[in-house]
């Protein structure tokens, strides 16, 4: 995974956000085993306690579930419940939309203009894609 960590916000919160993006984008699929805390921490170059805290948070939100594994009590897997993942996907989309709308309004565009700009942009990029 690619990690992008700023030092002016709690690191564990940023890990939660970035792991959620991995779930939404399908980098981690429902039912997949999650790499060990140690491996994830080494990958993100953060302290193991910090990664542990992020995983525990995702577990408490139900996005990760303890994996039935006799030997490694700390094993986790991605939830099979797609509705939970869809829910965070929608929340994530909403926050991008809020951010976008706020920026467009601060440029002085009214709502009608924003809608028509979006429609115009979508149709342009669609025709390019074809």
């Amino acid at each position: 995974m690619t990690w992008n960590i700023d030092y002016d916000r709690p690191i564990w919160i940023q890990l939660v956000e970035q792991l959620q993006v991995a779930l939404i984008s399908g980098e981690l699929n429902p039912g997949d085993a999650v790499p060990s805390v140690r491996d994830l921490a080494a990958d993100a170059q953060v302290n193991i306690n910090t990664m542990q805290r992020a995983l525990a948070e995702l577990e408490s939100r139900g996005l990760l579930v303890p994996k039935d594994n006799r030997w490694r009590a700390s094993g986790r897997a991605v939830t099979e419940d797609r509705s939970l993942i869809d829910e965070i996907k929608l929340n994530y989309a909403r926050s991008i939309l809020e951010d976008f709308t706020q920026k467009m309004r601060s440029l002085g565009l009214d709502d009608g203009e924003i809608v028509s700009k979006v429609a115009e942009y979508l149709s342009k990029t669609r025709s390019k894609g074809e």
Partner: protein
Amino acid sequence: MQNNDSFLNTSAASADIPLLECRNLCKSYGALPVLYNWNITIAKGRIVGLLGPNGSGKTTLIKLINGLLTPTSGEVLICGNPPGVESKKVISYLSDKDALDSGMRVEDTINLYSDFFEDFSEERMYGMLKRLSIDPMTKIGTLSKGNREKVRLILTMSREAKLYVLDEPIGGVDPAARDYILDTIIKNYSPESSILLSTHLISDVERILDDVIFVSNGQIMFADAADNIRAQGKSVDQLFRETYRF
């Protein structure tokens, strides 16, 4: 902690005894005070940064922990014991001075450590050397500065100690070597042990720290969990710069 009760059964209470405890620790060199009334407790499973400018007392504390200096007053306890034979069994110490013999081969230093410390893991050591592509037959004196620092660090981290005390582990090495050293520290982390590392290069180490202790002019200015500092919208580095502004 009540482990100052001399009758306390240490084996039964070992779960509650901090790995490191400093109580009202003071150190003066003659009339010059260098540590003034330090109280520090380090529990298991933490990576703690001892941060401060040069001359703030970091190395003095580390020498007190390792029994290289004796306190003027107050005490240092490692797993409930004062510095001595017992504490040296459980502390793995990376000193600020390079004491490796340039005439020895890397392999000789490994044998030396292996003879000296019963918790030294040759397997771990050779594994890390291999990943660094350092030949064990190389003479210490012919290693580059960065590789020599890495060898010193992995010798320290190859012990299965309780408390790792690292004095300026990322001192004079380049950013890539720095990353390697920090990775090594993270990878060898165990929930049963803790790491105390001193540095003034805060932005480089802050991502791996659980807790920070800011020291200045022989006094502890501030101690907190690193994420508590960030919850106030500041990086540890920013807070450090604000605390130590001239």
